């Protein structure tokens, strides 16, 4: 099924080019220049001056009040509006603006009355007031009245006439709300916004609202482009900054908090900024601070629905049931049909990996409002995450039917349409879902490793997650991204939703970009620690344990010590344990995520080294019981966070004293050595590389001295030394495919077939699609008398769908016969002969099997 992507089509309607900046009615050029510099001060001062000079000029007063409201100076905004109205009792022109201020500060009855006066008084912005009144009613659950109001705006548009930019933006807002019943109206909303911007390119408010509409539909690229235009005209536009922060959050890009911070500098009380900051803080598991942010909004506007929702979410995550219920009661009292309350709580749960809880909240949202298409979407997406595929699809279909412009939902449904191309393989504890074109090759390897990981981790953590755990393997990274975050472009390789894992197939990436085996092990470790802590394990500990378990699983797996990590340690930039979550959720630099993964693994390792693995289990229990890190550490580890940090960082400085002291020299020697290698001067390169190796022997990056030295030694004919370098490199670097293959070659040349085969087996966890590697494994297995290895390699070769398939099947049959599996051999030789009935060697094997003369003895 192909779904037209409505938003993309609409985006094609196009916007006008970059706006000329805000064009207030007074001092336009100066004001625009000030705003381009991100400075509201001169604009407000200018407007105040003009307002004093022209007490009856509604446009000036309106601009002043609105600008003050824009930077959240609501009391001054209200004063400005009231001052005008007091002096101009017969004018209706400032009632709408006053209503907006009252609305923003939670005085809803007064706001409604003010809007009404603007409408009945036929103010210049009466249509805007009509839209505002309808929005207010919608927010109070008076949906029918709200819809009648929105319809009046549509009528006004259809009646023609000379509508201002603001009027057109009001019409667009009406279309946006009415779109819940008729999704075609979303298209009209975009059209009206487009016309509003066309009528006044300086109408930044219309552009911000348009961007917010794009964001609502998860169309990040159009939202970003629209906001860029706003921020070019006014880099300090508070709501644009928050919206841009949301775009970045959505893209997983850095700088989210910085943008929110910039917004709050300009507009310290902006509810959108505070609410979003609260959401981010919950993701960082800083629930108290998140609640405090929500309270700040509520202090200004006690009925703010978004603030009540994030407050409730923070309380829920704190396991403060009374606090949650109180916030919920307040929210539903204000609007008994407030599905968005549950949707927001569900989304915050998702940020904290509580997918089952997200399902429950989203279900309540759609029960409350059967037209909550967002609710159906959240419900469906999270049902998919917990493995309820069919129910998830049904709800996503419902969401898409109601709102076909949501990119995330469309992408996910398109992905679900490809599921019939996937093959499900069951093992004792797993349902492996692998694309049909790769299943025959990959599923046996995934099955073997997954079961090994299950047994190992379940025993260590004394927790056995319920079977089957669903493991989805995607040959397209775009599909993996859609499955995990709804949009293409996620940088991760694997994702864990608890009972469901999603991974990139090795074919989704270039060779050497990742090790699928360690990734699978990592994600399964999450399943275990999330299960053992009932999803309460903090991000840093979950990631730290997952990386640590990778290192335990196979030599070389897991993150390694890097130059960047050492520099962060040297410069005091590693995050303290209380803030380590920020490194994952809101990294401030591009390399902070990788550094945080490695640091977290060292923290987990250090805890175990100091207190034993039992302490790790006790920590998980403490988190399960609702304790925060600051409480769990003293009670389980008998240490405060500060004491822990002091001991841990001292340990790191001691452990890495050598490379820390030699870091600059290491970089210098390595660069010099590699340059000499590139200049084909191996004799001169060797001592520089050897020195670099001695200075930082733990360094296993792709440009490590080991790789270059292996080539130098090999060229000199010293194969033993070359093999030694490659063995050291592969014991650190899990992704270096060529090193594994080259090591196998050198080992085989030296007669060490067993280790050669082991190196090739490790290479399969990086890239299992190379027929030559499987051929070599089959040959090595044969020479070692390792029939199981030969059979596995031969099966892989068949699965690779070779040109000469009869030959591959015959070789598999032969291997099975030699392994004593006559029935298997018979089955495979018949498959070979079905394709090539007169294939002589296969015929001969069939006859031997038939006569009972084939087998291991031959």
């Amino acid at each position, binding site marked *: 099924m192909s779904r037209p992507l409505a938003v993309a089509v609409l985006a094609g309607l196009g916007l006008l080019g970059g706006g000329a900046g805000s064009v207030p009615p007074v001092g336009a050029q100066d004001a625009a220049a000030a705003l381009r510099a991100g400075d509201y001060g001169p604009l407000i001062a200018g407007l105040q001056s003009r307002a004093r000079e022209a007490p009856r000029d509604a446009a000036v007063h309106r601009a002043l009040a609105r600008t003050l409201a824009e930077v959240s100076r609501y009391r001054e905004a209200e004063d400005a509006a009231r001052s005008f109205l007091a002096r101009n009792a017969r004018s209706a022109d400032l009632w709408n603006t006053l209503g907006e201020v009252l609305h923003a500060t939670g005085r809803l009855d007064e706001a409604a009355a003010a809007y009404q006066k603007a409408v009945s008084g036929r103010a210049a912005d009466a249509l805007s007031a009509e839209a505002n009144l309808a929005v207010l009613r919608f927010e109070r659950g008076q949906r029918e009245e709200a819809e009648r109001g929105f319809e009046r705006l549509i009528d006004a548009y259809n009646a023609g006439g000379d509508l201002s930019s603001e009027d057109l933006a009001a019409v667009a807002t009406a279309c946006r709300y009415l779109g819940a019943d008729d999704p075609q109206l979303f298209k009209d909303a975009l059209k009206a916004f487009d016309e509003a911007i066309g009528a006044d390119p300086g109408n930044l408010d219309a552009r911000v609202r348009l961007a917010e509409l794009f964001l609502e539909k998860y169309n990040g690229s159009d939202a970003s482009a629209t906001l860029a235009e706003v921020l070019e005209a006014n880099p300090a536009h508070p709501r644009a900054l928050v919206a841009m922060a949301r775009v970045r959050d959505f893209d997983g890009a850095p700088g989210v908090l910085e943008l929110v911070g910039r917004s709050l500098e300009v507009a310290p009380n902006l509810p959108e900024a505070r609410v979003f900051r609260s959401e981010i803080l919950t993701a960082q598991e800083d629930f108290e601070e998140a609640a405090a942010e929500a309270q700040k909004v509520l202090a200004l506007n006690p009925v703010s629905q978004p603030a009540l929702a994030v407050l409730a979410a923070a309380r829920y995550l704190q396991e403060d049931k009374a606090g949650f219920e109180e916030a919920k009661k307040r929210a539903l009292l204000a609007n008994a049909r407030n599905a968005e309350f549950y949707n927001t709580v569900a989304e915050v749960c998702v940020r904290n990996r509580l997918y089952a809880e997200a399902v429950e909240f989203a279900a309540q949202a759609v029960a409350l409002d059967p037209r909550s298409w967002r609710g159906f979407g959240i419900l469906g997406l999270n049902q998919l995450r917990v493995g309820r595929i069919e129910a998830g699809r049904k709800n996503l279909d419902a969401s898409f039917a109601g709102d076909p412009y949501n990119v995330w939902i469309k992408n996910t449904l398109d992905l679900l349409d490809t599921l019939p191309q996937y093959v499900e393989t069951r093992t004792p504890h797993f349902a492996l879902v692998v694309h049909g074109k790769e299943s025959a090759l990959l599923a046996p390897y995934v099955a073997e490793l997954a079961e090994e990981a299950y047994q190992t981790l379940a025993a260590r953590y004394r927790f056995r997650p319920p079977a089957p755990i669903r493991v989805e393997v995607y040959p397209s990274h775009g599909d993996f991204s859609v499955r995990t975050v709804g949009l293409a472009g996620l940088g991760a390789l694997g994702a864990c939703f608890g009972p469901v894992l999603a991974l990139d197939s090795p074919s989704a990436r270039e060779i050497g970009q990742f090790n699928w085996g360690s990734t699978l092990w990592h994600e399964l470790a999450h399943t275990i620690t999330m299960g053992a802590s009932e999803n309460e394990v903090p991000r840093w500990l979950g990631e730290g344990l997952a990386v640590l378990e990778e290192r335990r699983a196979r030599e070389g797996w897991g993150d390694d010590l890097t130059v960047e990590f050492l520099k962060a340690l040297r410069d005091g930039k590693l995050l303290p344990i209380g803030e380590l979550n920020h490194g994952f959720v809101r990294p401030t630099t591009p390399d902070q995520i990788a550094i945080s993964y490695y640091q977290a693994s060292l923290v987990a390792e250090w805890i175990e080294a100091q207190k034993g693995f039992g302490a790790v289990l006790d920590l998980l229990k403490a988190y399960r019981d609702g304790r925060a890190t600051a409480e769990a550490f003293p009670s389980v580890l008998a240490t405060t966070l500060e004491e822990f940090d002091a001991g841990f960082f001292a340990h790191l400085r001691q452990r890495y004293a050598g490379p820390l002291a030699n870091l600059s020299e290491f970089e210098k020697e390595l660069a010099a050595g590699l340059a000499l290698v590139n200049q084909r001067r191996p004799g001169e390169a060797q001592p520089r590389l050897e020195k670099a190796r001695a200075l930082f022997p733990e360094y296993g990056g792709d440009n490590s001295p080991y790789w270059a030295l292996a080539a130098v030694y090999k060229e000199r004919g010293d194969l033993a030394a070359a093999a030694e370098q490659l063995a050291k490199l592969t014991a650190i670097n899990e992704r270096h495919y060529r090193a594994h293959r080259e090591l196998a070659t050198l080992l085989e040349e030296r007669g060490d077939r067993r280790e050669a085969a082991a190196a090739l087996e490790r290479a399969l966890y990086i890239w299992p699609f190379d027929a030559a590697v499987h051929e070599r494994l089959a040959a090595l297995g044969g020479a070692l008398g390792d029939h199981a290895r030969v059979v596995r390699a031969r099966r892989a070769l068949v699965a690779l769908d070779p040109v000469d398939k009869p*030959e591959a099947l015959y070789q598999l049959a032969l291997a099975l016969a030699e392994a004593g599996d006559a029935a298997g051999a018979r089955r495979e030789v*018949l498959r070979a002969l*079905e394709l090539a*009935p007169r*294939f*002589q060697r*296969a*015929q*001969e094997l*069939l006859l031997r099997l038939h006569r009972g003369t084939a087998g291991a003895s031959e």
Partner: protein
Amino acid sequence: MTRAAWAALAAVLAGAPTAAAGDSHLVIVVGLGGEKKLGDAFHQTALAMIGAAEKKLGVSLANIAYLGEKAADPSVPVYRGRATRESVQKALASVAQRSARGDLAFVLLIGHGTAQGGESRFNLSGPDMSAADFAPLLDALAGRTVVLVNTASASGDFARVLAGKDRAILTATKSPMEGNQTVFATHFVAAFSGEGADADKDQKVSLQEAFDYARREVQRHYEKQRRLLTEHAVLEDQAQGALARTVFLGTGGETLTASEASDPALLALRQERREVERRLEALRARKAQLAAEEYERQLEGLLLELALKDEAIRRRTAERRP
């Protein structure tokens, strides 16, 4: 018995039932090269085909005709002069005259093609030839199995226009729009002259196998060159390959010595093998209608039977060879 007769007999006895159980007649037409390098390459491809047909597939030299760029080429015994519309018409008329019902007429066009008004044209000295020009020539071969392989660029139209009963039409491109120089001819000829095309390992290369091999190698060639595939070969036999699977040029590669061909026991065994192969083909055709277990049971029985026949044939052949 002449060599050609032996080849014909061998073709009958060699293996699976064939569409053309009689003589094979091969006409190779090399069109204008345009430049010397390409002209030489086309000529070498033609020579490779002639060599394979004669030496490997047992096609009588008397049944091979080669029309090329030159007026004459004494170094090539089967050379019949410059390829023009008239000479092509004469060569095919000659095949129609000399061949009998059940024979195979195999026409191989090597060179450049172009599209004019959406119609494929094979470039010759003088007027080019379109598919429509070939139509009456092929019609005159009724009763024979006809294979026409147009390896030129922009050749796709030939498959559509010339498809018919007892005909297999192969083109290097899927439409007249694919106008870039093709590499199909080299790989198609290599299927007969080299190793690797015998996918079912019956020691013979069927037309279908040659086509599959060539198509695969063309794809590999483009991948190796890191170029987008600009030629998509087509085989049209109006039977989803059922005809092409049973068409073998000459013996297809499997030959019998005179001594073997005169051994009644061996001939009987071969006849029995053919019968098993027929049953096997019939079983495969019914695969979708049978339960999997039943299909596998019958398949195993027939494959065992076939293996025993081949074993007996090999034993008997070994006994008769010095």
